[in-house]
């Protein structure tokens, strides 16, 4: 990605990836890496922090003969994600106005 992306955007992308049903570390990492250049070891600390903040929770479920740890967004995480999404919406509008002229207004 050609644009600078800060930690708050990364948090929002991770939350958004975790908001889907039945997702897990590897899948979240691949989802994030499809839109953002981050190394594979970047995601665990972010997931762990969001978990400590009460935005994510984990549960273990049997998959292919082993227990896989799944991530799930909490109500607090959902609220934070919604805030991020509306901020993103504002930001996007402003950028669009700069990029394409006052179409949005």
């Amino acid at each position, binding site marked *: 990605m050609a644009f600078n992306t800060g930690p708050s955007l990364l948090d929002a992308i991770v939350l958004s990836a975790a908001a889907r049903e039945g997702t897990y570390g*590897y899948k979240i990492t691949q989802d994030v890496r499809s839109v953002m250049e981050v*190394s*594979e*070891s970047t995601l*665990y600390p*972010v*997931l762990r922090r969001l978990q*400590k903040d009460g935005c994510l929770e984990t549960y273990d479920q049997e998959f292919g003969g082993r227990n*896989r*740890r799944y991530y799930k967004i909490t109500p607090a995480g959902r609220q934070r994600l919604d805030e991020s999404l509306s901020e993103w919406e504002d930001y996007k509008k402003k950028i669009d106005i700069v990029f394409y002229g006052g179409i949005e207004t």
Partner: protein
Amino acid sequence: MTKREFLEALNDELLPLSEDERSAAIKYYSDYIDDAGEENLAAVLEELGSPSQVAASIKADAEIGRNVPPQPKQAPQQAAPQPKRNGMSAWGLVLLIVLSPVWIPLLAAVGGIILGLFGTFIGMLVAGVVMVLVAIAMIIIGIITMLETPMVGLLLIGVSMLIAGIGVLMVLVSVFLCATVIPAMVRGVVRIFRRPASQSGTA
């Protein structure tokens, strides 16, 4: 490196962390490697980096998360310059002492030059004042002489005015030099000596 070797090495690296913290990380990376698939093991391990690199990323965040959860970037930036500054000034002090045989004589020499110049300027000032006084005396003599032999008197007055002019010029030059050149030199020397100190202070 096999999955087992990687996880064992990671576990060793994470020993300083709490049991809870460590087992969560091990579980995550164990799942991660399994989900990436057996055939991608080598690629995944390479992409993750060495166990110590992975451990460093976990430890950094575990420690920061304890203090300031929402802003992980802020804490290390504020904490980092503090010990660095102390280290620099300590080194600066050592350097100052070690290099004292060099800079003390240098400082003395510069001080001597400034004092010498100051003396020269004072001398010029006094000489200029004396010349003006002599010239005034000569003008008076010239006026008296003019009463007897006007041409000699005029010559005397002219010469003494020339001397007075030179004297006034010397006074002006020496006052100017004292007032501007010496303070500027002192300031320059002070700046030279202050610069390394202030640099080590801000760096």
